[in-house]
């Protein structure tokens, strides 16, 4: 049995938000192909710590593809380019012995770099606060299934609800547009009966916040859809555009 792969990593290092940052090259030796990408970084970091160097800062939490924390651009593609896969679920067997791998943070004005590969995605939180919610009555719990939801709408809403807010769509888009994320949220709530009372306000406010955060606009290149680990589709963007027009025509 061979002793694993030897890789060269070209990694973006940046001390803090104000520093300039630059690429640094590291050798990753004897990488087990069964490791995930983040485990590989853990091993590289252990090595760096032992040598008394600063470890590479990167975001992660669940490491099972559901929280949306992990965020690195691997060889120019957010999450590394394997279909419907987050960086934490990417495995080293995707790479070959001797490969050089570039690792960069999400790049967008609206996602300022905190350190190395860690970016500040609180812009997404503010977009959600602007309208990504439904108001409910407190008090006694309502009967389950009291509100009927057509199966088709339910399916589409569930598809949209899969978005984990990772921001890969923004990172991939040449315009750093957040349309896929925002439209997933607008669709998820707007397709359901519970989301109707705030439907117009929601789309107007979320788009206004999206613009205020400095995200770009959609030019229908499809990059976001191609890298989205949750396979959110461009249909959602179209649905949001439609909702926005309706809200605008109503003069809201």
């Amino acid at each position, binding site marked *: 049995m061979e002793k694993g792969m030897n890789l060269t990593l070209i990694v973006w290092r940046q001390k803090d938000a104000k520093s300039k940052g630059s690429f640094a090259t590291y050798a990753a030796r004897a990488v087990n192909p069964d490791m995930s990408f983040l485990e590989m970084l853990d091993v590289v970091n252990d090595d760096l710590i032992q040598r008394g160097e600063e470890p590479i800062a990167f975001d992660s939490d669940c490491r099972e593809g559901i929280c949306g924390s992990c965020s690195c651009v691997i060889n120019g593609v957010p999450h590394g380019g394997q279909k419907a896969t987050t960086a934490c679920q990417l495995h080293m067997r995707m790479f070959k012995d001797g490969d050089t791998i*570039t690792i960069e943070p999400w*790049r967008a*004005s609206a996602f300022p770099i905190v350190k190395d590969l860690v970016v500040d995605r609180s812009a997404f939180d503010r977009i959600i606060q602007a309208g990504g919610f439904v108001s409910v009555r407190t008090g006694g719990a309502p009967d389950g299934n009291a509100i009927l939801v057509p199966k088709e709408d339910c399916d589409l809403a569930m598809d949209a609800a899969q978005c984990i807010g990772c921001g890969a769509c923004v990172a991939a888009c040449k315009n*750093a547009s957040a349309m896929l994320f925002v439209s997933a949220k607008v669709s998820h709530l707007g397709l359901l009966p519970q989301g109707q009372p705030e439907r117009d306000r929601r789309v107007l406010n979320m788009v*206004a916040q999206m613009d205020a955060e400095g995200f770009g606009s959609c030019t229908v290149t499809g990059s976001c859809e191609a890298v989205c680990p949750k396979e959110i589709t461009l249909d959602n*963007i179209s*649905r949001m555009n439609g909702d926005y027009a309706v809200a*605008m025509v109503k003069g809201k």
Partner: protein
Amino acid sequence: MNNLFHSTLGKKYIMALTGAGLFGFVVMHMLGNLQVFLGQEAINRYAHFLQSSKELLWSARIGLLVMVGLHVWSAVKLSAENKAARPVGYLNNPTPAAASYASRTMLMSGLIIAAFIVYHLLHFTVKVEAVNLVGLDFGKLHEQDLTGRLRADVYRMIILGFKVPVVSVFYMIAVGLLCLHLSHGISAMFQSLGLRNKAWWPVLQQSAKGAALVLFLGYIAVPVAVLLGLLKE
């Protein structure tokens, strides 16, 4: 109203609606041009008909100008915002995932088309002698219609104009870029207007490319025919 001009989505609406209007014009214009193949009488009668009502002519011209103006304004504004949203790229500038060539070059193709439109207007509408490279004032080309009245001889103007190879080639390149622009633009427009769904999208994308190709062939047919000597004075 405020949202239409200030939000990104509103500006996309302006771009899509004006783009749709311009697409309609481009189709009609091609059909008009192709009448040159029906001979001198047909194309000159058509041109005279277009020129005959100054009121309608100027309504159309102003309408087109407003559409081009709004389209370019929204394109330039949105492109600048998009650039500001992504000031730093990735190492070695990789091509963004899945983005087609046409979709990445919309602003460039659009701006060259705009430059071409200016030339085209000077060439055949304002008839500035200096730009036609023939050494002849196209404004002086006239012929008599069947009743003996004098009218512009558009047929000869087209043939003399396109006999100059540089001019013909420039036209063909510009039209090629227009069709590149439209091969992405027509389908993008449906998404911007919220008119896309799973079932129709593949059809829309293919139709957009098909329509762009038909326009390309329809437009280059005239200069190509002139250069090959199929259309003669």
